[in-house]
């Protein structure tokens, strides 16, 4: 589904990714773990296309999308959930969800499914997204990406700033959804419980490189990498 080869990227000429290789198979849920500053968010931005890589290739669904702009990638089936609950604060919940419709062009909009996963979103349809709590905004961000039934879901630190109970609930929902709809998921995270609950396979990232691949979640190893 997704294959990244020797990806280099930088912010303002400061290199952040220094040759990332990773691949995700169809239907798989893969986690990328690493400390702050390891380059996880940059990796996600490069995959969705918000950051132009310096070199390397990104293949999605058998196509080379390295030079495609992000909106084309999204319409091609990538659903992206940005870090820090990047919803549109002055748009209502429903309008936020509607923005997700463009993902995976031609796919059917799945409002029912989303409302089923996150009933609170239906309740708050008319409310402005910016006035909701952090957890609710995170659900909205996830729901928004799911509306368009993406083939590949990209999650950037879904647990950040969210209550543990909601984190757990959300991990579960995402896992369930992936199973039900055979959606491939790539997420980056430093919260152990999310990694535990979701990942079938794990990459460990340090200083812009993948330093280790863990077949299943090896709890202790992961913990040392997070250096808690």
């Amino acid at each position, binding site marked *: 589904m997704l294959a990244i080869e020797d990806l280099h990227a930088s912010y303002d000429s400061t290199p952040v990714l220094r040759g990332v290789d990773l691949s995700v198979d169809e239907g798989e849920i893969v986690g990328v773990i690493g400390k702050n500053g390891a380059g996880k968010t940059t990796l996600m931005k490069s995959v*969705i*296309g*918000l950051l132009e890589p310096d070199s390397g290739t990104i293949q999605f669904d058998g196509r080379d999308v390295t030079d495609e*702009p*992000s*909106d*084309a990638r*999204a*319409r091609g089936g990538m659903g*992206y959930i*940005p870090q820090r609950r*990047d919803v*549109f*604060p*002055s*748009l209502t919940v429903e*309008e*936020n969800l*509607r*923005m*997700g419709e*463009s*993902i*995976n*062009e031609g796919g059917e909009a799945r409002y029912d499914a989303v409302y089923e996963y996150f009933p609170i979103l239906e309740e708050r349809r008319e409310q402005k997204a910016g*006035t909701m709590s952090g957890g609710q905004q995170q659900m909205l961000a996830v729901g*928004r*990406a799911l509306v*368009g039934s993406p083939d590949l879901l990209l999650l950037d630190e879904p647990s950040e700033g969210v209550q543990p109970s909601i984190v757990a609930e959300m991990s579960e929902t995402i896992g369930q959804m992936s199973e039900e709809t055979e959606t491939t998921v790539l997420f980056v995270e430093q919260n152990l419980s999310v990694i535990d609950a979701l990942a079938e396979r794990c990459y460990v990232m340090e200083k812009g490189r993948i330093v280790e691949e863990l077949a299943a979640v090896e709890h202790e190893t992961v913990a040392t990498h997070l250096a808690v």
Partner: protein
Amino acid sequence: MIYDTLNLLFQFLDSFAFIVLATVGLAVIFGMMGIINLAHGEFILVGAYGTTLSYGAGLPLALAMGVGVLATTVFGLVLERTVMRRLYHRPLDSMVATWGLSLVTVQLARIGFGNTLSQVGTPLGSISYGAFSYSAYRVVLAGIAVAVLVSLYWLFMYTEFGTQARATMEDEPTARSMGVDTGRIYLGTFGLGSALAGLTGALYAPTITMTPELGASFLVEAFVTVVVGGSSVLVGTSLAGGFLGVVNATFTNLAGTFIGQVAMLLAAILAIRLLPEGITGLIDSWRAKRAEGGQ
């Protein structure tokens, strides 16, 4: 007494229509894409010239106005592709660049069409009341101003384009990552802003003098209103238009045109000082307070 009130009302409608119509195109472009378009007056010029020239060529007035709007839209779209897209969210640079554009446009209009065009007469006659009468067309203009605001509200709030445009304005990268072709949204929004400026030119073509400098007479009101209005294009423009219209009409009525104009500008300066975020900021904080109270 009743006639005086009617006079004041008509003058308010007149000011309101002028302020709103002078502003909307600029407000859409500034509010949505952070371009301070000093060539705004020249967009209006294109609309007015398009209308007057095609009326002169024999088209009925309504159709001629359509041509004016269309010409301005095309003008705007071409500029977006060639110039404006390099200036998004560089408001200060955009100011200098569009000033250059304004000089060029005015002078090319002069070279192309001479110092003046022969004028379209104002249609629709007048409304009489007591010793007074008022141009019916100007009352219609006020109606159109309101209609423009309402349709913009509908467009931005209830259509897919509107939602996408608002999302793009708020957070362009995220909108793009949701599959929105933000380049097209920008193009469309700029086209819309241009069309609105063109509409203003078309509507006022029968009432103002056709010279290449005609755009300048809209510029001050437009800028003042945008600033007083603040970040929200619609709410800001309508409220600022209303506020400045009342100030202008009242003082003009009481003390003459000059005082009316100065009062309006001073009111604007005070408003900017007291509400650095514009009227929109005031509304936002009021809403926030109400929301808090409600919880």
